[in-house]
């Protein structure tokens, strides 16, 4: 690849408890404009991979590069000013703030850009513009997910990290969430998303990494993996053969 990847996570080793590594030598590349999926069974280390890119888990070995710059273990507010946005899986809105205030927090470091970014975000999520004065705490799970994504987009990120955007949503809402993600990506934002719903994720993403026990076990385009019979085996073990 001639072009410098937007995000390059190189052989990461990371974990929460001393002595226990969740990630073991895990790598990931995201190029400009790509929609990258991270899938794998529970406990494979998907969220941990995302959090170690965003400096929320201490990286014990390996490096994270952003456009060629070393951002390993950088603090969250530094990463935000470098254009990395992160949407956690749960508790991802400020419930006592209105939708508009939530979005304002997104541009906390550059308040002057609010109007311009607000327009961009409400183009993708028109509902947020219509209901700007509503408290985020009164929203449903799907609506909160929109607010959270909208807030992350406010900084005009060069890369957006999403931790299970479909979690806790009804099937219809899940589909809507995926399509929104696709739309955000089409607007030019590089997206790295962790997903539980592997099939949906694979349908929309350009490339995906399949994690197994803290390692990147497979990678390929979404379509290739979608039709790969090994996927079922990975998720459900060898159970089906018994």
């Amino acid at each position, binding site marked *: 690849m001639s072009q410098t990847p937007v995000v390059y996570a190189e052989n990461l080793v990371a974990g929460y*408890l001393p*002595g*226990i590594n969740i990630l073991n030598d895990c790598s990931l590349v995201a190029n400009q404009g790509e929609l990258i999926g991270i899938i794998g*069974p*529970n*406990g494979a280390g998907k969220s941990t991979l995302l959090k170690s890119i965003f400096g929320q888990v201490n990286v014990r070995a390996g490096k994270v590069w952003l456009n060629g710059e070393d951002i390993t273990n950088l603090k969250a507010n530094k990463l935000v000013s470098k254009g990395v946005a992160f949407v956690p899986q749960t508790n991802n809105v400020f419930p006592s703030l209105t939708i508009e205030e939530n979005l304002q927090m997104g541009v906390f470091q550059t308040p002057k850009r609010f109007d311009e970014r607000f327009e961009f975000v409400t183009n993708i999520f028109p509902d947020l513009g219509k209901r700007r004065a509503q408290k985020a705490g009164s929203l*449903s*799970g799907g609506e909160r997910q929109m607010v959270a994504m909208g807030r992350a987009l406010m900084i005009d990120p060069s890369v957006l990290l999403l931790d*299970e955007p479909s*979690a*806790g949503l*009804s*099937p*219809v809402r*899940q*589909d*809507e969430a*995926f*399509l*929104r993600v*696709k*739309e955000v990506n089409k607007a030019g934002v590089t997206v790295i998303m962790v997903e*539980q*719903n*592997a*099939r*949906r*994720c694979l*349908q*929309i993403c350009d490339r995906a990494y399949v994690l197994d026990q803290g390692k990147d076990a497979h990678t390929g385009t*979404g379509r290739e993996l979608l039709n790969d019979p090994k*996927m*079922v085996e990975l*998720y*459900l*073990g*060898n*159970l*089906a053969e*018994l």
Partner: protein
Amino acid sequence: MANQISVGEPAPGCKKVDPILVASNVTRQFGGLTAVNVEHLEIPRGQITALIGPNGAGKTTMFNLLTGFDKPNTGEWDFDGHKLAGVASYKVARLGMIRTFQLTKALSLLTVLDNMRLGDQKNPGEGFLASFLRPSWKRHEAKITAKADELLKRFKLDAKREDYAAALSGGQRKLLEMARALMSDPKLVMLDEPMAGVNPALTQSLLEHIKGLKESGTTVLFVEHDMHMVRHISDWVIVMAEGKVVAEGPPAEVMKNPAVIDAYLGAHANSDLGDVTIGDAKEGN
């Protein structure tokens, strides 16, 4: 295919030949989200039952509800002839339904041995007045200490007997928590992710312990993500997704169930999001 566990064909909520726990209409809502919505569920006595499902399926919430650590919005359940809805968690434990926790709750600043002794439920010395009369509990204490030592040996923790539980590794704490749960000879042991964080070297012995429980007549219900473990030891598998029971059956069969594959790999596999726009998704599904 016939099995000895369910009455008739396995299906979500099917009747069991000899259930130890029968739950009906259990629902629990957090805000607007329905975390658990189980119409009917029976756990077979004397068997090892696995409760599986993707993240957020409501497995741990179900555990919390059944053991009195959380209060349901609706629902009733019956454990071994006792109505349990609304019963305090400690009373549930006293009836012989002992649980462990996903994040281990080893009592860090007690020794391993004291952790074990605390698992006993019949110690007269735990009464306030009796605690002054050492003779009244001395013999019982010796008895349960012997029992604790035996269990610690079985779980290969005997060398750590005098250490603070805080000094154990994550996997050892899991073992300690399980061993502690066995101190009171429970009828039903409920293990919440017993393998999470356990060193692979210990995995095999943990599996053996669980199998051993069944041999000694204890019913086991466990939540687990590790499918290898589920395959190895369970007699029956219950699959939850989005708060509901979506499939049940012997492990070999249940994994062929399309509902289970959907639950794990994502629903609506027949439509393709790559081809639809937002408007379609809203109306079409």
